């Protein structure tokens, strides 16, 4: 038994604690169908996510709508992520600062979160959404992708830029809506 306890209490833990954790590297390509539209018209946004690093337990892709009160004017037209998308409205408890849900904040605007669990290396997942802006002027959309576990700075994209309501970096996309 002494040999057994030496193995399970000392030898194996020492061996395994030196193991490096795989580092995922998510990337996101966003394409808009138009830069300018007339009020009442729709446009499409395509979000293509890839994991360029090692396997992630989960990869999320978020499209946030800071000018919206709800998601009534947003429709998902195509979707091939592994799990169903989650729709969040404002004033909901959401994860923040890449903590994977450990630190919660209140959402300030609605957003859609697509996710794949797990996210294997070099696999591509796509979500296309159709949006009909309800007011004229510049219409803003925030996008980002995050891989979990969040072990390095490369586990989120973009790696810098504007911080959103979840205290995470986002890419901003603007469509001009003319009256």
């Amino acid at each position: 038994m002494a040999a057994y306890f030496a193995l399970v209490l000392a030898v194996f833990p020492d061996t395994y604690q030196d193991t490096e954790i795989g580092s995922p590297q998510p990337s996101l390509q966003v394409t808009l169908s138009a830069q300018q539209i007339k009020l009442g018209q729709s446009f499409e946004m395509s979000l293509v996510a890839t994991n360029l690093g090692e396997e992630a337990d989960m990869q999320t892709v978020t499209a946030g709508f800071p000018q919206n009160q709800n998601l009534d004017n947003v429709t998902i037209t195509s979707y091939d992520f592994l799990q169903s998308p989650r729709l969040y409205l404002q004033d909901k408890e959401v994860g923040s600062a890449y903590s994977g849900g450990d630190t919660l904040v209140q959402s300030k605007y609605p957003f859609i979160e697509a996710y794949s669990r797990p996210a294997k290396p070099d696999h591509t997942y796509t979500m296309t959404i159709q949006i009909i802006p309800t007011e004229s002027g510049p219409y803003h959309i925030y996008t980002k992708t995050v891989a979990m576990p969040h072990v390095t700075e490369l586990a989120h994209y973009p790696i810098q830029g504007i911080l959103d309501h979840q205290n995470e970096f986002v890419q901003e996309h603007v469509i001009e809506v003319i009256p």
Partner: protein
Amino acid sequence: MKRELARRLDYARLFGIANLMVSFGIILVTSGGSWDITNHILNKPETFFAPPHAMLYSGVGIALVGFITLYISWKKSGKPASFGWGVKITTFGVGLLLVAGPVDFVWHSAFGLDGLLSPPHLVLIAGMGLTSIGALANTKSIQKESGKPSPLRTIVSFVPVWFSITGLFYSFSLPFSKTDYFDFNPNPIFAAGFASIAYPFLISTILISSAILSKQRFGVASMVGVSYLGMMTLSAIMPNHTLVPTIPFYVANIIPIILGDYVLSKAKNIKNMMVSGAIFGSAFYFLYYPLITYTYNEVTLEKLLWPSLTSLVYFEMIPIIAPFLIVCGAIIGAISVKFAQKISS
């Protein structure tokens, strides 16, 4: 008269085969269940139609065919009273298994992703447990009638009982039961306390009982333990690729199992048997790797446990809690020998 006797003997043999089939079916059900837990951790399946469910319900099918054959052969051989209890318990267990399938499907349809502890899962686990216990009772009666222990029968009968009761204990010690609709997660302190008592008690009871049933023949308890380790490796470790390098660590658990079995095979009195129980119980924290990580993480490190971090968190907890759990497991394991003796006699 001779023909009648021969016919009864044939049915008795068929009863024995059918009983093995019932146990084997439950082994598939429980392995599928263990794989399903891992699949939920890794892949968050959103549909009832997942590969682990296919394995699980194939097991139900095999257990059902086995049960029908068992019941017919029992009836045709003149309903011997010695098998009455075993057949009754198996009948009730199979009934619960049959109810659990449709209820589970309806629950999935209504509430989507379900947690580990849910009404249909409890029915399923109760069905698994009772069916396997009924088959074990039949095995005991078969061996009593024939007068000689059968190692194969003993091993095949004990493994599903071990796994079924483990499933029940998982439900009350793992934080996997919170969904969008319900929060059935156990209180973390209760879960840790429960695990510290229930798991060593179960390991010791199963291994000691299997040895007693085989007249303390060396090798039987070891084979029950090896079967358990093999099934856990296949269903809980291998599906998570980040845990595959830790298989040598998990396989090392064969050491206390063989050692405890050896002590048991030489045991002349209850004190020797208690030493063996203590050896088995002391290894529970290691035998219940990797899922036990979730139970004790809640009361120690409180880290966010992603599947790829499971082994790191587990090994990080070892210096914090393992010494205490080894002592606790040894005491519980030794005490449970009395219980094992009682149920085996």
